[in-house]
């Protein structure tokens, strides 16, 4: 297994635990209504998602900076993983737009707290999707010849 592939696998595991932790804390603490009122709750969620992002940055930046760990093929796979990232972000934005529009259509306004939640979930989905994209890239390379 290539070093970048191994990191992507760790990234996926971290991302899964990270996402489950944020969703669990969010639900257990009372959801969106409590989130908009309770500053302590917001700080816990902030700590969780910023902590996860830092973990991701450390995971990928350390390998990209270490000589001999990543070559042109790994970089090609990493570049192509952006397609998966882009698709995942679009799908989750569509899900947010449809679910919020349908939920708040009658009120004519959406609580501002959802802007924050959309931003947070976009970052989480984007980082986790990068790991997924890298793993898909390595998998696809098994099947056919890849040209630069």
């Amino acid at each position, binding site marked *: 297994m290539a070093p970048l592939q191994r990191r992507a696998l760790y990234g996926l595991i971290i991302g899964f635990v990270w996402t489950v932790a944020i969703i669990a804390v969010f639900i257990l603490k009372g959801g969106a209504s409590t989130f908009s009122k309770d500053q302590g709750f917001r700080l816990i969620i902030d700590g969780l998602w910023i902590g996860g992002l830092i973990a991701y940055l450390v995971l990928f930046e350390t390998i990209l900076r270490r000589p001999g760990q*990543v070559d*042109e*093929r790994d970089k090609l796979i990493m570049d192509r993983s952006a397609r998966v990232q882009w698709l995942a972000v679009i799908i989750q934005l569509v899900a947010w737009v449809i679910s919020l529009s349908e939920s708040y259509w009658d009120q004519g306004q959406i609580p501002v707290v959802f802007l924050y939640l959309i931003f947070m979930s976009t970052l989480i989905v984007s980082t986790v999707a990068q790991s997924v994209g890298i793993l898909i890239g390595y998998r696809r390379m098994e099947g056919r010849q890849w*040209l630069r």
Partner: protein
Amino acid sequence: MAKITNRIRRLRFDHNEMTQEELANRASCTRQTIIALEQGKYVPSITLAFQIGRAFGVKLEEVFQYEEE
């Protein structure tokens, strides 16, 4: 559809059974890339192709071949 083939495995054998790791170090790439090249799953950049040729001390055409399917 064109296909790029290579003789890397053969050349390694001819060069005192050079290991994939050794070739990877000489060509400045990872061992996994050498494996992918030998299996025909990856076509390298011109730069890496030249580095592999240089690692064996042969011309590019002796390592990589262009085939029309």
